[in-house]
């Protein structure tokens, strides 16, 4: 009995220790979790979300990123800890002069508004959840450091 258990453990650890099996093993675990996920459905969707997409106005030049508010004034933003970001909402309402002109005269700025300085996505990425952006770019930085070190070394 004891020998049998030892044999099983030996077999398992031998399989696990071969790194060629590593991806297959992890993928297998993920398949099991995916099946468990399907079995755990349906899951309820919480209606009280942070930064919800509400009050969409298709007629607005900024659709679907129009969150209202006056530039250089406060705008209502459903943040997790509003007391930590006293100027939350200022970035949401701000448009550069060019963006303001395009928003006034065309209906298509909404498709590019995320890209300009200002807007709700910048508000979240830079202001209220800025630390996410810092860590994200650090990941990119580390990956670039690895890639460029290997690239450079070959060139030498």
């Amino acid at each position: 009995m004891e020998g049998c258990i030892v044999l099983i453990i030996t077999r398992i650890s031998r399989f696990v220790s071969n790194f060629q099996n590593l991806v297959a093993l992890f993928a297998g675990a993920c398949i099991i979790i995916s099946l468990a996920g399907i079995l755990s459905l349906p899951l309820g969707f919480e209606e009280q979300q942070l930064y919800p997409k509400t009050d969409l106005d298709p007629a607005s030049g900024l659709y679907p990123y129009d969150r209202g508010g006056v530039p250089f004034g406060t705008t209502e933003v459903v943040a997790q800890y509003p007391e930590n970001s006293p100027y939350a909402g200022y970035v949401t309402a701000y448009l550069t002069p060019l963006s303001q002109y395009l928003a006034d005269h065309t209906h298509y700025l909404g498709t590019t508004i995320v890209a300009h300085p200002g807007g709700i996505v910048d508000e979240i990425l830079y202001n209220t959840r800025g630390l996410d952006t810092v860590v994200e770019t650090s990941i990119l930085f580390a990956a670039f450091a690895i890639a460029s070190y290997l690239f450079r070394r070959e060139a030498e």
Partner: protein
Amino acid sequence: MPEIGGSDLFVLEFGDILHYYTPYTTTLFVLALIFTALAILSRPEGQVDIAFGGDAYYAKETAVSEMRFRRFMTIACGLATMGAMGSGDIFNFTLFASLVGITNVGIVAAVKSRHVLDAAYEYGIVAMVATLPLFGGAALILATTGTLSIPALAAGASAVPLIGKALLALGVIGEGMAPFYAAKAEMFRAPGAPYVIMCSLSSLLIFLRVVEIAITI
């Protein structure tokens, strides 16, 4: 809410993202800090291969630039681990865990050994696909509870589904391979012991942290 970490010692506020330090997470944080300091101060060893059945041996050559790069990656890994220890936001924690994963690959990526590189590559692929359970778990928790903040989740406004916690735990296991160290053993054949130790320590620490998160929320 079971308070396994103890009450907060202090809280750092970054807008919507809080970093909180309980006695549990502070211990892990200090451990990461000490090991990062050791990795900065210590000098890597020189590996010697002994030919089997004879007196011959030869020292493996390790370039200074290679060691400098690997020390940089080790420090980055230590900083990422310290960040993950204090993070009070689920998504922020998953990002720190991904940073630990990629710096772990970076620590051994500079080694000029085919065998180590093979292992690092396989491990890197696992770390890469582990972002699905990591971010998927965080997104699932956000959708079903409406918040990502761990203190808010711990206050128990709404129940976190078990599948969300399971995804999160699986993702962290994939990023660090803890506690399945046998899978990472081949990577540890790389020279530069202080740096390689950081690989296993960081993955152990993020695993201990995700256990705390899964029990707390």
